[in-house]
């Protein structure tokens, strides 16, 4: 049915109570639906990285490690990897050795379930857990240069590796929480992630192409930010865009959304550090 026809179905005598009733039905249907793909979700063979929506210049920047600005952060991360820190006076390398082998594929399965905390943790949170528990060092603040450099360095070891996040059955309720958040309309503009990223990718929001919100490249260099940024930063800016109150960094809701996005991207290759407009 096209929109004009629907207009006639709904045009007369719909009061506010009925509208809320309709919204409630839609919401209940979403909540009740377990892992089976919902209408509007992208089938596996139609998934596309944000890379494929970019112009040739931005692609070329990502393709060439000597011009990709994110590679500077990866190099910084490599230095930090071998630098002793905290009162334990240990470097990451003292426990994990050569990251090229020990960290290969690790970022591709994050956020991962942490037994002690009984919830998923992001790669950034895992690194800070190592700082706290194994180095006896203060946590690195979210979006600080050092945490971005370390997580870019670790995630870079998975470049080209297929995403496996979400395999652990203990993650199931958290993936579902993330999916519900993705489907939930929010903010003054009353839009859900799915409205743009499942239903309208490849269209243009003002001048910008809307992508499928695939999390394959993080942390990544965004030209608009003029720096590297985390997936959480990206999600927070989409929330602010719809005039919603963005969740704080590290909030369980953001971790759940991140986990849902990674599980939704299962099998897609990691690109860290990617470049985006």
């Amino acid at each position, binding site marked *: 049915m096209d*929109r004009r026809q629907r207009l006639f179905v709904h045009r*007369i005598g719909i009061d506010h109570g009925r*509208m809320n009733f309709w919204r409630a039905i*839609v919401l209940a249907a979403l909540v009740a639906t377990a892992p089976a793909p919902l209408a509007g979700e992208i089938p596996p063979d139609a998934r596309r990285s944000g890379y494929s929506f970019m112009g040739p210049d931005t692609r070329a920047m990502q393709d060439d490690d000597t011009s990709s600005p994110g590679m500077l952060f990866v190099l910084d991360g490599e230095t930090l990897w071998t630098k002793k820190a905290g009162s334990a006076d240990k470097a990451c390398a003292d426990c994990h050795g050569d990251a090229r082998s020990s960290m290969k594929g690790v970022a591709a399965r994050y956020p991962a379930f942490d037994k002690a905390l009984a919830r998923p943790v992001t790669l950034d949170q895992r690194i800070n857990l190592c700082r706290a528990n194994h180095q006896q060092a203060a946590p690195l603040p979210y979006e600080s240069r050092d945490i971005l450099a370390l997580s870019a360095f670790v995630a870079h070891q998975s470049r080209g590796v297929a995403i496996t996040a979400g395999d652990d059955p203990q993650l199931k309720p958290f993936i579902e929480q993330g999916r519900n958040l993705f489907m939930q*309309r929010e903010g*003054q503009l009353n839009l859900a992630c799915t409205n743009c990223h499942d239903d309208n990718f490849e269209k*243009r929001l003002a001048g910008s192409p809307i992508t499928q919100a695939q999390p394959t490249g993080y942390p990544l260099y965004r030209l608009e930010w003029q720096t590297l940024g985390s997936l959480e930063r990206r999600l927070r800016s989409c929330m602010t865009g719809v005039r919603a*109150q963005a969740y704080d960094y590290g909030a369980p809701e953001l971790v759940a959304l991140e986990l849902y996005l990674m599980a939704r991207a299962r099998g897609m290759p990691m690109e860290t550090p990617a470049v985006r407009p």
Partner: protein
Amino acid sequence: SLAFVANARAEGLAPYEIIGDGIAESLTGAPGDAARGRALVLARTTTCILCHSGPFPETRFQGDLAPDLTGAGNRWTVSQLRLRMVDAARFNPDTIMPSYYRADGLVRVGRNFAGKPILSAAEIEDIVAYLATLRD
């Protein structure tokens, strides 16, 4: 209490009556100004051209999530245009078009926007006046 404040703010919205598929009466009691309405539609913060395109040769950054506004004044009456601006969901419950004159029933609205409609009654009237001029 918080609830009282939210209600007081929501009550700050001008009352309107939906008759059939429209709102016949101006929200302000006065006609809007089409020239101001055009400027509002083009302003980024009003958000229309995030989704819509239209007869706006001066801007390259127009969206294509929604119909081109060219000819909207032929397709819809002023009364229908006003209701669509106030609450587009009345025409299509699944629409992605925001309700511009509504402040309740929304989730996690940002601190700076909570309890306020996206546009004021006067802004809506200006935009409605402009849309009505969009005739092919």
